[in-house]
């Protein structure tokens, strides 16, 4: 069976618009495979090109070299089988929660009444029943994230790409949402590529954790299978000895890269 998403030897080099001689290689020679139904997290220091990788997988960004395959087929244009949950606000402020959730269905030509019914069900599933007619500015940060999640899931994508989706939330809301995502994932078993800089989150949720090096020219430097039993509770799983052990091992790899990344940021600022 082909992988749900396969990034093969991906290199992404950006050219400065003002000065074409200036080049920046964000990602170099990265290979990443996600099986159908697998939950893979990618961790790395801030600014290391994690989002770049995700955008390549989504088809929003063209890699300079390398190949992307989706269920065995080479990717041309946007990845139609993937749903993307963005790090920052992606809801349309002029549409109410339910209108936002039904957006993707409308794009696909689903009849309005039908789309509205499905959207209502999805909002209920993410715990937002009764908030259908609220505009995004009338919802809290956590509720907006739930709406965004419902928006992505309503299209029933085979691959879900998540770019630090909960980084802006407070820790309690975050753990609640992590558990909810795990529950929804367990029910439908989609392939998930989850980007985060939070190692705890990565281990608690994933089947596999991939560690990226500091930029520029980011590439994977370690890969760890997470053999913690499921179903998991993200808050409780942290107390298991196996979790602590895995955390120590992965952090051993990641630590150096984080320090390197930090040193580079200091240099850039100086």
């Amino acid at each position, binding site marked *: 069976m082909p992988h749900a998403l396969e990034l093969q030897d991906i290199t992404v080099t950006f050219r400065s618009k003002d000065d074409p001689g200036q080049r920046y290689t964000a990602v170099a020679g990265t290979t990443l495979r996600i099986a159908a139904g697998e939950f893979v997290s990618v961790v790395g220091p801030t600014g290391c090109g994690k989002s770049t990788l995700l955008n390549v997988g989504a088809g929003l960004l063209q890699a300079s070299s390398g190949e992307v395959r989706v269920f065995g087929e080479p990717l041309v244009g946007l990845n139609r089988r993937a749903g993307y949950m963005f790090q920052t606000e992606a809801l349309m*402020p*002029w549409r109410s929660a339910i209108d936002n959730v039904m957006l993707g269905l409308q794009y696909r030509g689903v009849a309005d009444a039908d789309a509205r019914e499905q959207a209502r069900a999805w909002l209920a599933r993410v715990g937002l029943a009764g908030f259908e007619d609220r505009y995004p500015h009338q919802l809290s940060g956590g509720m907006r994230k739930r709406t965004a999640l419902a928006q992505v899931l309503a299209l029933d994508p085979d691959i879900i790409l998540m770019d630090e989706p909960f980084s802006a939330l407070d820790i309690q809301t975050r753990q609640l949402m992590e558990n909810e995502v795990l529950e929804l994932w367990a029910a439908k078993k989609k392939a998930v590529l989850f980007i985060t800089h939070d190692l705890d989150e990565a281990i608690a949720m994933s089947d596999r954790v991939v560690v990226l090096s500091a930029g520029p020219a980011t590439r994977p430097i370690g890969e760890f299978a997470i053999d913690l039993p499921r179903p998991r509770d993200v808050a409780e799983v942290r107390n298991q000895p196996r979790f602590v052990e895995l955390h120590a091992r992965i952090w051993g790899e990641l630590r150096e890269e984080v320090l390197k990344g930090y040193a580079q940021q200091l240099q850039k600022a100086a």
Partner: protein
Amino acid sequence: MTMWTTLRPNERNLRGWQVGVLVLVLAIWQLASRNEQTAFFIGEPIKVAGRIWSWFLPFGLPANALFPEGLEGRADIYIHLGVTLLETVLAFGIGTLLGLAFGLWLALAPTASAILDPYVKAANSMPRVILAPIFGLWFGLGIWSKVALAVTLVFFIVFFNVYQGVREVSPVVLANARMLGANQRQLLRTVYLPSATSWVFSSLHTSVGLAFVGAVVGEYLGSARGVGYLILQAEGTFDVNTVFAGIVVLTAFALVLDGLVGRIEKRLMKWQPKAGETEKL
């Protein structure tokens, strides 16, 4: 001392003070106009009021202390107001549609935008009131020459706002819509257009105001109907009271228009957060 504490301007008697200022100005004006030579230039508030009465009310007043000659009740301003309003509404509608269409087009077609850029800038910096004689020549003295003049004023306001609005669409919202499967037409309908219209609404006060200005100025420069025409006529006969009456009517009218726009805006922009609104859950 106690009288001063109650009379001192504060939030409660603010309205009283505002009216007081008006009364004071009118009183000084009235006093100054007792000199006939001065009155020729600045008019008389009471006669201005009498003029407005005759314009709006269908019944007259017999001769009395204030109006020694009595007042006629002609109620003949409505046709002129109606014409000015019609011109304003037409100019606003046409100008907004054109601005929206051109703004969307140029914002989404970078090549066309780059080519036309200097001309857009030139057209915008041109004092467009000088187009009035040309429009008079093209469209005659009827309403369309005024509509055309006002359209040129409204168009650029809307055009620049739409252009800006489309340019500033959040790239994340755009990427999200694309990932959700929007094609070009759906992007236009669900992302660019709503974003652009929100900018149009935010400039609604300005563009309605300018439509009104364009209509009145157009009438003033040559017409057979409209409030601007009334002022033009009065000026021709050195009837300064009527000129002032026209100014008062136009001001009141503009205030009403602005209030209406405010209400429409409130209804259409309910998705936008207002400063100080803390209704979060």
